[in-house]
C-alpha cells in the first residue's frame, strides 16, 4: 500500500469512529447537492456582531445555475462602521433589506438538506446559528465542508513543501486563477468558493480512487 492509501485508510477509520457512523457519505460527491455560502458580517465577534449579507448558490455536479442563487441583505440595527468599509455594504444603501428573521427563514429553506460548503465554514456556520437562535429558530444540522482545509489535500507531500494549516480565499483564487473582482461581496465570495470547490474535487478525483464525500472532510 502506498503512503496515500494508508493515511487515507486511517483517516477513514478515525472518522467512522469519531463521527456518528454515516454510511451514506461514502459515496461520490457528485451524488449530493451542495450549497456554497458566504456571509459578510459587521465583525468577528459571535455575540455582538451581525450578518450584513448572505450569498449562497447551489451546486449540482460541476454546474451552477445563475437563476437559483440567493443574495439577502439584512436590515441593521447593529452597525459597525469599520467592517462596512471592508465590505462596502452601507446601511440600507438602497438595497431591499429584510429582517433577520425572514433572512434566516429564507436561508434555511434554501439550504434544505444539502451539504454546506464554505471557506472557513466554522465562522459562517456560527454566525448563522447564532442568528437562528436569536430568532428562536432551530440551528442548522447539515453536514459541512471547508475549502480552506480541503485545499491542503490537493497539495503534494514533499519534504520541500511546507503546508500551511489553512489557506485564505485569496490564496485559492490566485492558485486557481480566479478573478478576485467580487471579493468581499457575499455571493461573489460564494462563487469563488464554489469554483475552488469544483477544482479541488476534480483534482482529488485524480488522486484518489473512488472519491467519496468522506475524503473531502
Amino acid at each position, binding site marked *: 500500500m502506498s503512503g496515500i492509501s494508508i493515511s487515507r485508510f486511517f483517516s477513514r477509520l478515525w472518522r467512522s469512529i469519531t463521527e456518528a457512523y454515516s454510511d451514506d457519505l461514502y459515496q461520490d460527491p457528485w451524488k449530493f447537492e451542495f450549497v456554497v455560502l458566504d456571509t459578510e458580517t459587521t465583525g468577528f465577534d459571535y455575540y455582538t456582531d451581525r450578518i450584513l449579507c448572505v450569498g449562497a448558490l447551489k451546486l449540482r455536479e460541476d*454546474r*451552477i445555475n*445563475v*437563476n437559483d442563487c440567493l443574495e439577502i441583505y439584512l436590515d441593521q440595527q447593529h452597525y459597525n462602521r469599520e467592517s462596512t468599509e471592508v465590505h462596502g455594504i452601507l446601511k440600507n444603501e438602497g438595497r431591499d433589506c429584510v429582517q433577520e428573521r425572514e433572512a434566516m427563514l429564507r436561508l434555511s429553506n434554501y439550504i434544505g438538506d444539502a451539504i454546506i460548503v464554505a471557506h472557513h465554514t466554522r465562522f459562517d456556520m456560527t454566525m448563522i446559528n447564532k442568528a437562528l437562535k436569536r430568532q428562536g429558530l432551530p440551528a442548522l444540522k447539515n453536514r459541512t465542508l471547508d475549502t480552506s482545509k480541503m485545499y491542503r489535500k490537493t497539495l503534494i507531500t514533499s*519534504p520541500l513543501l511546507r503546508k500551511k494549516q489553512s489557506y485564505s480565499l485569496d490564496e485559492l483564487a490566485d492558485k486557481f486563477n480566479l478573478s478576485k473582482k467580487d471579493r468581499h461581496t457575499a455571493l*461573489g465570495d460564494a*462563487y469563488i468558493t464554489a469554483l475552488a470547490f469544483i477544482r479541488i474535487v476534480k483534482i482529488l478525483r485524480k488522486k484518489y480512487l473512488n472519491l467519496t464525500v468522506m475524503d473531502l472532510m
Partner: protein
Amino acid sequence: MKNIISERVADFLKKYPPFNELHEKDLQQLSQEVTIVHRDKGQVVFSGGETAHPHFYVVHKGAVELRNEGNNEVIDLCDEGDIFGLRPLLAKEEYILQAKAYEESILYAIPIETFKPYTQTYEEIGNFLIESFASNTRSPYAKLQAEQIAAVIGSNSTLDQSSRMLDFQPVSFTKKPVCCKPQTTAKAVAEIMTKKKVGSVLVVEDKFPLGIITDKDLRNNIVTGKLPVTAEASEIMSSPVITYPANLTVTQAQMAMMKSGISHLCLTADGTTDSKIVGVISKNDLIVALGNNPSVLIKAVKRATKVKQVKAAHKGIMRLLQGYLDNNIPMSITLKIISELNDACVKQVIHICLEKMHAPPPVPFAWLAMGSQGRREQLLKTDQDNAIIYQDVEPKKEEATQGYFLKFATKVNKALQQIGYEYCPAEMMASNPDWCKNLAAWKLTVSGWISNPGKEQVLLSSIFFDYNSVYGDSKLVDQLSQHIFEATEDYPKFFYHLAEGALQNPSPSGFFRDFLVEQDGAHKDFFDLKRRALMPLTDAARVLILSQKIKSISGTVERYEKMAELEENNRELYLSCSYATKALLKFRAKQGMLHHDSGRFIALNTLSKEEKIKLKRTFKTIKEIQTLIAVRFKVSNKVV
C-alpha cells in the same frame, strides 16, 4: 433575479457578438438564465450523436476543441467568447462533433428557449448567426464550403486542410496603428518607428488616412540625401494609401499586397480613403497568420506587449513542434529550436512584467530557470521551476529589495501560468521567499546543501544545479557557479551523495525484463517515463559534469557529448547516453502531444511493439551508466 453573478455574466457576454447587440435589459435577463459549467482539461462537453442539450455554450475561460470523432480531425478550437453547440439546436439535430475542453474551462450554458426569441426580435443577431454558419468554421458544413471555394481558386493542394481553411479566416490586424501628422518631421517619424518597433507609420489628419511612410520611403527619400531629415511627413509619404474594409481574409490581403506591390494595407470603416482608419495589416501579420516558422514565431514573441500575445505565439510553437515530430526532424535540432523559442517566450513575459512594475529593479538581478527548462530540455509546457538572484544590498534595504523582487516574481509566475506553465506543486518558484534571495544568501544556502548533503539537500541541488540564466545579469550567476565549485572542492563527499541520488531510481527493467510500472496512485499501471528513464540519465550527467567542474553546460545531451570528449575510454557509453536521452525526450514529446499533457506517464498498452523495443533499448544504456556512477563515486550495493 439579478444578482452579482448574473451581472458578471452580462459584463462578459456584452463584449462578444452577437450579445453586444442586446439591450441592457434583455442581456440581464438572459444572463440570469445561464448555467455556469466547469470542465477540466480533456473533459467532454458533448459527444457526436448525443441528443442536443437544451442550451448552447459560450467559452468564458479556457478553450474547447471541436473534433470529428470519425476521423479524429480537429475542426475548430473555440476561444474565450466563442459560441459552440448552437447550430444543432436551431436545426433540431443531434450533435455531429465532439466538444472537449482543450484546457481547463469555464463555460456559460445559455438556454435556447430564452435565446431564440432574440434571434427574431434583433435583426443583427439573426444575421450574425446566418453569417457565422455560412462563413466560418463553427460547423462542418462551413468547412466543406471553404474547400469548394479553395478548389475554385486552385489553392495549393499540398497544404493540409486546416491550413487551407486558414486562408479564409479574417486576418487579425493591428487595431491601434502607429500614426503621425503630416507636419511631423522625417527624423521624428524614424524615431517613432524605432521606438514602436514597426515598419510603417500612417500619416493621418482627423482620423482620415492621407498617406503611409514605410522603411522604404525613408530609404528612398532621406537616406539617399534627396530630402533633409527635417522634411515633413507629407513630403515623403506614399499617397494615396491603398485602403480596404476591415473584414479582409488572409487570401484577400495577400492578393491585395501582391497586386500593388506593397507590404502594408490600411483598413478603414468603409474601405475607402474617405472614412476613418480602423487598423493596419502588415505583411508580418499575414506571415504570422500563415506561418509556423521559427523566425516568424520569434518575431511574434518579441513584439508581444501583452501576455495574451505571448500565449498565442506559444500555441504556434507547439504546432511547430508537432510538425517537427511528424516529420522526424533530428532531435538535437528540435531541442535547440524549441527551447530557444520557449526561452524567448519566458524572456518576453519577464520583460512585460518588468514594464508593469512601478519602479525599475533596485539592484541587478538574474532570473534562473531550473530543472528541465534550465537544462533546455523542455519541449512541452511542464511545471515552472524558477528562482531569482539579486545583488547583495545593505541590511537595512534588504527587506524592501526582497519585497520588490517577490512582487515582481509573483507577476511573472502568474503570467507564465497564463501561457500554460503550471505552478510548481512544491512551490519552487521565484515568488517563494526561499527561492528569491540575494547572492550572499544563495551562497550560504548552496554551501549548506553541499556541506551537509541529506536526502532533501541532494534533491534540492539536483533541481537547482541545472540552472540556466534566462534574464538579467549573468555575472551574478557566474559568481554563484564559481562558489559551487569552490564549495565542492572543500566537500568532495558531496559527489558521493549526488551519485547516490542519481542511483535511487532503479533501472527501469525488472527481473523478467518487463517494464516496471507504477503500483499505486492515479498512474497505476502506467510507465513513468520521467522518473524511470529520463531522470537516471539527467542525474548521472549532472554528477559527472559537475565533478569535472563544468557549469556552463546544462543540457543533458551536451553534457554527455562533453564527457565523451573528455574521457576517451568511455566515449561510446557517453555517446549512447546522449542518444538515449534524445530518443526518450522525443518519446516524451510525442506522447505529450498525443495526450495534450506533459507526456510523463505512458500507458504501455498503447505502444506498438516497435516503440516498446526502442524504449527498452535505452534501458540497457541506463543500466550501464548507473554502474559506471556506482563504481566511480564508490556508491555500493545500489545498482540492481
